[in-house]
């Protein structure tokens, strides 16, 4: 199916009243929950997963697209008004955005990030529509050996390249892989790492781990360092941007989106790098008379650019997720597990076997984007009011929903104990600066990588050289080694010179 007939089919499905309703509900819930401090898109989707139990796959994924984009909008609102970024991608937004808010310019900051997200989301979704089928063509030629190598590359980039330290990133990855191993081995039926506990035979649920990492661990960490006192929510004030603001924002929006999307598409997904790059680019390119606003009163370019980069990168992550079945961010990993719970395995075949679903999903990304910009600007007052929920009741409420997200699904006290156990580990991970995303990615991708490896070895009749004699596989593995060893070697060379 070519792109145009695909899009026509998709919009035909997505524009039905029911599906528009799902998109609207998703956008609303996504923004409302994403606005809550400390809750990013990954946790938002994890908490909303139970909703899908009664819904068809198409409806559920339209809902998720809305939630996905909505949670990103919500996150930027929190960064600007409260200066507490909910996820790594909006840390940079908080930098200039909170400064603008402190100087009474919260309204324009919110406006530029909303329109910037719209511009970037649209560019990103266009990218998905046109790049997706091309990647699928390429991906259909990959065998299990290439897939395994690709996953190895993915492991290296998400854990060792991004983040503060390769060692700590790999530790997080190892923890995730270890959790992923728990349960019955799919090929031989042997129980692994279950310690004789019946409940562990099915493996550990990814929602449980996500909720433990992002909700329980975060809450425990905040209690550990809790200081009495109230956080100040900045007033929104006048929302509209002046003509000057528009002129200053358009460039950063486009540059940010074009910078962010490729980063999202590459297996080195992640939003820290493109948002940082966009920030530094805008600070360089800003007209001289506004340069002093950076870091002092808050420059609108420093909100518009990174926010667009963040959204475009997040959209880009959907390309490897849908076409290769490779999640490169925690959010994508949870969406992948949602696909799996419907018995759908994302990958190159998805575009042929589930063409209906894929194109409807892509169409609803466009729709969600438009809905959000229409919905969020008038409702910004409501979102700001959500931010005023007092901290004690907010965290108490989050933990109630954490209980529903785990115990509500399995009715198992063992799962609840596991949730709190992993939550305690997550608290220490925060204290000692271990990244959380590699845990989720490791536990989802680990079993897939193992399966690909065993398939490849079965095809090659046990010949291990299959990974390095197949040219594409070799190239990907070389890239992975370079990504792992390159930065430290470069540092050593640079120090000598």
């Amino acid at each position, binding site marked *: 199916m070519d792109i145009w007939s695909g899009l026509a089919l998709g919009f035909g499905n997505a524009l039905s009243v029911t599906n528009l309703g799902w998109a609207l509900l998703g956008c609303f819930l996504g923004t409302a929950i994403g606005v809550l401090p400390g809750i990013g898109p990954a946790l938002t989707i994890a908490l909303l997963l139970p909703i899908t139990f009664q819904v068809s796959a198409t409806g559920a994924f339209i809902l998720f697209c809305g939630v996905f984009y909505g949670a990103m909008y919500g996150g930027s609102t929190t960064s600007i008004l409260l200066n507490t970024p909910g996820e790594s991608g909006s840390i940079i937004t908080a930098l200039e955005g909170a400064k603008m808010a402190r100087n009474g310019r919260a309204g324009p900051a919110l406006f530029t990030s909303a329109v910037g997200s719209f511009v970037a989301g649209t560019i990103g979704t266009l990218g998905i529509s046109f790049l997706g089928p091309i990647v699928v063509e390429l991906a259909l030629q990959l065998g299990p050996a290439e897939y395994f190598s690709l996953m190895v590359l993915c492991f290296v980039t998400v854990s060792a390249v991004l983040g503060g330290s390769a*060692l700590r990133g790999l530790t997080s990855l190892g923890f995730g892989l270890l959790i992923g191993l728990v349960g019955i081995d799919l090929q031989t039926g*042997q129980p692994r*790492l279950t310690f004789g506990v019946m409940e562990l035979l099915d493996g550990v649920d990814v929602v449980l781990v996500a909720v433990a990492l992002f909700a329980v661990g975060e809450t425990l960490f905040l209690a550990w360092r809790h200081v009495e006192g109230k956080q100040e929510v900045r007033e929104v004030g006048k929302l509209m941007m002046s003509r000057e603001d528009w002129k200053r924002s358009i460039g950063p929006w486009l540059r940010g989106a074009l910078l962010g999307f490729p980063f999202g598409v590459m297996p080195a997904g992640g939003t820290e790098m493109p948002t940082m790059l966009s920030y530094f680019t805008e600070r360089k390119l800003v007209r001289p008379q506004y340069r002093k606003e950076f870091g002092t009163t808050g420059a609108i370019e420093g909100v518009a650019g990174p926010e667009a980069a963040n959204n475009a990168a997040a959209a880009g992550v959907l390309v490897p997720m849908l076409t290769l079945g490779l999640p490169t961010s925690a959010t994508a990993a949870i969406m992948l597990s949602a696909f799996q719970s419907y018995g759908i395995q994302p990958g190159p075949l998805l575009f042929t076997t589930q063409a209906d679903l894929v194109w409807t999903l892509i169409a609803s990304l466009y729709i969600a984007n438009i809905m959000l910009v229409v919905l969020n600007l008038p409702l910004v007052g409501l979102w700001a009011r959500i931010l005023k929920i007092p901290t004690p009741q907010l965290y108490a409420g989050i933990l*109630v929903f954490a209980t*529903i997200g785990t115990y509500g699904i399995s009715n198992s006290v063992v799962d609840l104990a596991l949730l709190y156990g992993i939550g305690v580990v997550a608290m220490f991970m925060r204290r*000692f600066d271990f990244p959380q995303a590699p845990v989720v990615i490791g536990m989802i991708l680990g079993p897939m990588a193992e399966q690909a490896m065993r398939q490849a070895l079965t095809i090659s009749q046990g010949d291990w050289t299959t990974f390095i004699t197949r040219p594409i596989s070799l190239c990907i593995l070389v890239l992975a080694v370079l990504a792992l060893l390159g930065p430290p070697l470069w540092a050593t060379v640079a120090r000598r010179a």
Partner: protein
Amino acid sequence: MARVKSGAGPDLAVGVFVVLLGLLCLWQAAAIPVTPLYAQVGPKFMPYLVGALVVAVGLGLTGVALRGGWSRGLEEVAEAPPTNWRALGLLGAGLLVNLLLISTLGFVFAATAQFVLVAAAFGSRRPGRDLLIGLAVTLGAFLAFDKLLGVNIGAGILEGVL
């Protein structure tokens, strides 16, 4: 061996913990029964690989800790306020109460008790009001999930009546 530099003790504990976790994985991998089924790679291979990876990074972390550690240099740790034992204790109690009561009293009562304790942990001074809010939140959530979505959040006293 050089004495552990001051302040790196916690980092050292983390390194040792990670090594132990890796060893646990290796031990469990060895305990996987060997299958008579033919396979090029058995079910043990991946657990051995992951266990080895975790032990290796654990040793790496231990090495870094012995050379002074990494977490002292972090801004967030250096500027952190002291441990709030009261908040941590109340929160821990909340989680424990939920864990112990949920299978007997049911979701609504257990989660409400947890709500009150967690709110108190974060400085709420009005347990009575929190009790009412907690009841409303958990009851609303229970009804929404049970009646609308058909998600069964366990049995309990109140849940049996509704």
